């Protein structure tokens, strides 16, 4: 087995330990924390007044723009890391920089377009 796989065994061990830690914390909570539920305590917190309506309501949807922008640039990041490794390979260096430059430029056009359409300004 190579060293990489052994590292992941530690990740597995920490995961199991983390499950144990969380379970222990929840047992401690169950033992120590007082429980005296009442209607008012279990109601949804809305700054002390009675909650109005449920949790399903209409709301602003403007955050979706950031999700789209993120997807665009996250794909870019997937390609960046392998590129970081081959940059020093002879014969790939300059050519890969130019190609990557064109790729990122296309993404920047997308960001500029989003900015021009006003998705990023609220007021």
């Amino acid at each position: 087995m190579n060293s990489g796989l052994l590292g992941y065994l530690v990740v597995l061990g920490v995961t199991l330990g983390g499950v144990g830690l969380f379970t222990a914390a929840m047992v401690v909570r169950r033992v120590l924390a007082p429980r005296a539920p009442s209607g008012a305590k279990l109601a949804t917190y809305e700054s002390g007044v009675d909650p109005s309506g449920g949790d399903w309501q209409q709301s602003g949807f403007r955050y979706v723009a950031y999700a789209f922008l993120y997807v665009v640039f996250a794909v870019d990041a997937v390609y960046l890391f392998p590129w970081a490794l081959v940059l020093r390979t002879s014969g790939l260096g300059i050519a890969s920089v130019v190609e990557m430059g064109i790729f990122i430029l296309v993404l920047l056009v997308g960001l500029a377009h989003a900015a021009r359409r006003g998705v990023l300004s609220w007021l």
Partner: protein
Amino acid sequence: MSVLEIVLRSVAVLVCFMVLPLVLGQAEHKVMAHMQGRLGPMKAGGFHGWAQLIADGVKFAQKEDIVPRAADKPVFRLAPAVSMFSYLLALVAIPFTPSTVAGDLPASLVYVLAVSGIATVATLMAGFGSGNKYAMLGAFRSAAQLVSYEVPLILACASFAMAAGSLSIGGIVHAWHPIWLLWQLPGAIVLLIAATAELQRPPFDMPVADSEVVMGAMTEYTGLRFALFLLSEYAGIVVMSALFAALYLGGWNGPFDGALGFVWMLLKTAAVAFVVLWVRMSWPRLREDQLQRFAWFFLVPLALFQLALTAAGVIYTA
């Protein structure tokens, strides 16, 4: 590596996860007390308020445990665990000396970035699962902020990986040279700001702005469940500070680093963590749209500029 060694390494990570965030929390109490002239944190236990953290722990343990009637109960109960796992798992791959790393992963930089992304899922779970409007709005803000700042964070980290030609944090520290302090400076600025925003620390604490959305996604949480969210926030500061110290400040590099490498890494991490705390105490929070514009129109272009600078440097010296 025997089973015993794996167990010992895992236990060491868990101990670090329990101890380092608490040390940081204690430091935050004291630094904040001194910087803002606060008397409260200096009281408990007598000398310099040394027992404040213990008092906090006792308080958290004896708070009443409440799961609101409107909550989606399994999701609500599981969210603190998910939040805990993200930075707990990230801690595995942080190297303290060339040989002191709990799990020697081949692409540890990508691994740390990937598992620290789990925190976003936890915040969304807490926000959606609480059945509370403040929590919902807080989760929206958090998700938007975390994905927006993830982009410059990843771009800055990619720049360090390019400069070193390695995806392993240890490999990057090996390749580190003092000239990086100048060459990678724009990337370091992006990394520090984006990391602070990823942790939702002030001035980027819009998702938990108390005067607007109470405590954001964590509004309905009490007692130990809430304490677990806090623990993972402070563990996040430790992980991000260690990452910054390793990538930009050269990790264990320093005088006598054969014997003192561990000390240098810890000192650098502590210094970065202090800056993160200091920023919290000095700056007011950004408004939601200012915060987003700052990420997309300042940090992303600056990070791309750093990538170009790094590529040019690597090609020039190759």
